[in-house]
């Protein structure tokens, strides 16, 4: 550190408890004007609490926060926004029924004294300039509900950077962006930095962090373990170790694919209108690789009977109609949806109840439920997945994200005649330890002859698991690559640069 740049935000010794849970114990964070600062940490390390404190949504129990050297204590989000702190969230915070212009003006409309909305709206010319900055050209009166997911994420970014911001907080902003859109975002961020904005960048993707960030802070168990280290001082393994406090071992697998086709779509027409032909063999792990928005998730959902369309999927000799999830389960097709909370979890139901949901027929006779049999069958599965805390009767809502995901995996394992497994983003938002356990379970299932189809936007995950990659572009399977394909080859195929 040769010159001392201006400190935009300094947080010292921040602690925050929720009831009996200690979310932050002693967190430090220093953001410097004109630099991008990456924040790393496992889920549950306290990142989101720290962000909430920065943006004024939560008040810390102790510790100090100072903005450009002056101590501050925000009482509301509105105050933080007024002070020049602009948050951009991972979960879209747009208003679908309202127009693009209304959404761009949301901060102005939402805060301040009530009055005529005309005065609060961003002038149309200015609004167009904001959009152009992130590479968008949209009709300002269009409802946001008619935009694509990527467009919405860029719109949200345009709304944030359009404001005069001193500190920009980006919470996993690229989750919904394709490569070109992410590039656009990074260019905008650099542009802002050049203007003196301090950027806090939260991401799970090391590539992005290395590309964009100047420094990195690592949180573990509510405390800062690496404080503002320049990027490049620590290698990835060191950072991961700092996040986990332990060394993760990578699972290696040897292919177990057999000849027999288990899950087959032939001449199927998906809800998106695209044709689909795909076959997964026993013991094989097939990866559906696609950038966000490519349609890889839709293909996987279709194969599991979770999305509608025309045609049938064959499971061995038997068939189920597209969209008939019930029949698919009966034939042994397990499914882990992409959105754990909206589509997977039963929050008020016990861990056992969550895990047994697809296999109730196995535990019941003439409509009566055999709870002892249920417990006897499910508990070993939860133990195998190292459910933590080990409370099979606790409500699913009380577990961390990674352990909730384990419950969904256990639900697949519990299927009485499991033949095929379809996983969508199986470890999104899951901590590294849970991720390793989930991967191990998937590999185990494959070696037992289960056909596995994984759709993931996480290339590391696919390369760790798959025997074969199907690269999805524009809603269709564009290329079929062998398991030996290099990461570079897959990336090229994803971007559509490979030779046909």
């Amino acid at each position, binding site marked *: 550190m040769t010159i001392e740049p201006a400190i935009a935000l300094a947080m010292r010794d921040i602690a925050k408890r929720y009831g009996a849970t200690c979310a932050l114990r002693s967190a430090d964070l220093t953001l410097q004007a004109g630099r991008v600062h990456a924040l790393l940490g496992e889920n549950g390390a306290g990142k989101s609490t720290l962000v909430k404190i920065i943006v004024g949504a939560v008040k810390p129990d102790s510790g100090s926060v100072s903005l450009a050297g002056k101590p501050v204590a925000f009482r509301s989000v509105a105050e933080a926004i007024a002070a020049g702190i602009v948050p951009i969230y991972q979960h879209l915070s747009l*208003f*679908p029924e*309202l127009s693009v212009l209304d959404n761009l003006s949301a901060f102005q*409309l939402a805060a301040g004294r009530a009055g005529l909305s005309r005065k609060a709206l961003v002038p149309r010319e200015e609004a167009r300039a904001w959009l152009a900055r992130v590479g968008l050209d949209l009709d300002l009166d269009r409802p946001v509900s*008619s935009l694509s997911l990527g467009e919405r994420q860029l719109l949200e970014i345009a709304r944030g950077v359009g404001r005069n911001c001193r500190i920009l907080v980006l919470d996993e902003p690229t989750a919904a962006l394709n490569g070109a859109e992410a590039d656009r975002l990074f260019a905008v961020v650099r542009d802002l930095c050049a203007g003196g904005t301090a950027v806090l960048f939260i991401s799970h993707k090391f590539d992005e962090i290395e590309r964009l960030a100047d420094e990195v802070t690592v949180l573990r168990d509510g405390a800062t373990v690496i404080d503002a280290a320049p990027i490049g001082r620590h290698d990835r393994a060191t950072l991961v170790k700092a996040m986990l406090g332990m060394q993760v071992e990578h699972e290696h697998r040897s292919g177990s694919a057999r000849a027999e086709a288990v899950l087959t779509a032939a001449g199927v027409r998906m809800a998106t209108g695209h044709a689909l032909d795909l076959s997964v063999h026993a013991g094989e792990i097939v990866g559906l690789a696609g950038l966000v928005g490519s349609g890889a998730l839709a293909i996987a959902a279709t194969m599991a009977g979770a999305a509608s369309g025309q045609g049938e999927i064959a499971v061995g000799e038997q068939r189920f109609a597209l969209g008939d999830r019930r029949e698919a389960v009966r034939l042994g097709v397990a499914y882990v949806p992409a959105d754990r909370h909206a589509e997977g979890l039963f929050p008020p139901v016990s861990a056992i109840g969550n895990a047994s949901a697809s296999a109730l027929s196995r535990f019941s006779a003439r409509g009566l439920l055999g709870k002892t049999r249920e417990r006897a069958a499910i508990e070993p599965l939860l133990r195998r997945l190292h459910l933590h805390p080990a409370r099979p009767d606790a409500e699913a809502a009380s577990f961390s994200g990674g352990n909730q995901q384990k419950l969904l995996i256990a639900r697949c394992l519990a299927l009485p005649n499991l033949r095929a497994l379809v996983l969508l983003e199986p470890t999104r938002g899951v901590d590294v330890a849970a991720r390793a356990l989930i991967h191990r379970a998937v590999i185990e299932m494959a070696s037992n002859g289960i056909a596995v189809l994984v759709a993931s936007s996480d290339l590391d995950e696919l390369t760790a698991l798959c025997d074969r990659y199907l690269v999805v572009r524009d809603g269709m399977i564009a290329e079929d690559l062998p398991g030996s394909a290099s990461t570079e080859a897959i990336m090229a195929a994803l971007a559509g640069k490979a030779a046909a």
Partner: protein
Amino acid sequence: MNQVIAPRLLVAPAGIIAAGLIFAAIAPGFLSLGNAASIAGQAWVLVLLATGQMFALAARGFDISVGAIAALAGTLAAMAANSFGLAGLIVAPLVGLACGTLNGWLVGRLALQPIVATLGSLVALKGIALLVSDDGQAVPLTEAGQATSLAFDPVLGLPPLAWLALACVLGAQFLLSHATLGKRILMLGANPEAVGLVGADAGALQIRAYQLCGLFAGLAGALMTARAGAGLPTEGAGMELQAIAAAIIGGTALSGGVANAIAVAAGAFFVQVVLTGLNLTGVSPFLAQVTVGLVILGSGLMDTALRSLLTRNRQPKDVSP
């Protein structure tokens, strides 16, 4: 914006025309001027209740206590009018505002589900209305003639109270389309989680929405009292349902974020056209009630149908399932 709400806005006018044609064919005298005036006169109470309900629905809330609020407000206003003269009717919107504040506070500050909060106040307010009125006795206005004249004798084409109601509807629409408060309520309904993230106080907005709802219910209570020449503590039961139906038929999305006060007024007129038409065809009032029930179910089915239609149209091509 138009792409989203246009089909919703057309339902109520289309319904009025369709119902009008049917009744014109089967009920003699339906198309007479006198009948049109009678529909117009009777509809205003419902228009006000439905407009209030619209605010609650737009904020992704729900208020089943509006009928009870109107009855209590009308009764208390009648009592006030008997003590302080007709100006005492002003008590009704104030009572409505107070009840709305209570509902809003329960939902916005104590985070109760809207159905729990407003069900509780529905039952409790009914009880209070019975208590203040000596177990449901009507409270006749001493200046009933003057009050009914305000409600029935046209000045420039409409009775003064109807002008007032019309002004309230236009005011509500102005609020939605041109005021930050209206936009904020729509934002709250469109994405309740995000509204706090952009710096608004979601709880405070919920309180505002229920306050507006209560205020309009109170106004409806004043109108009811003026029309009847008496405060009717047990009136208004069932009106909340008609109000919800009218608001939905008037294009308000049950999922929040979409509302138009003028269309909601049209929705209320549709319900009134059906009721008056049935009355003219000599159908038992009990069967008319059955019809209202069917209209409510129909509105629910319509909301579902519209929602699935619109989501199909607006589904971005690359969104994942």
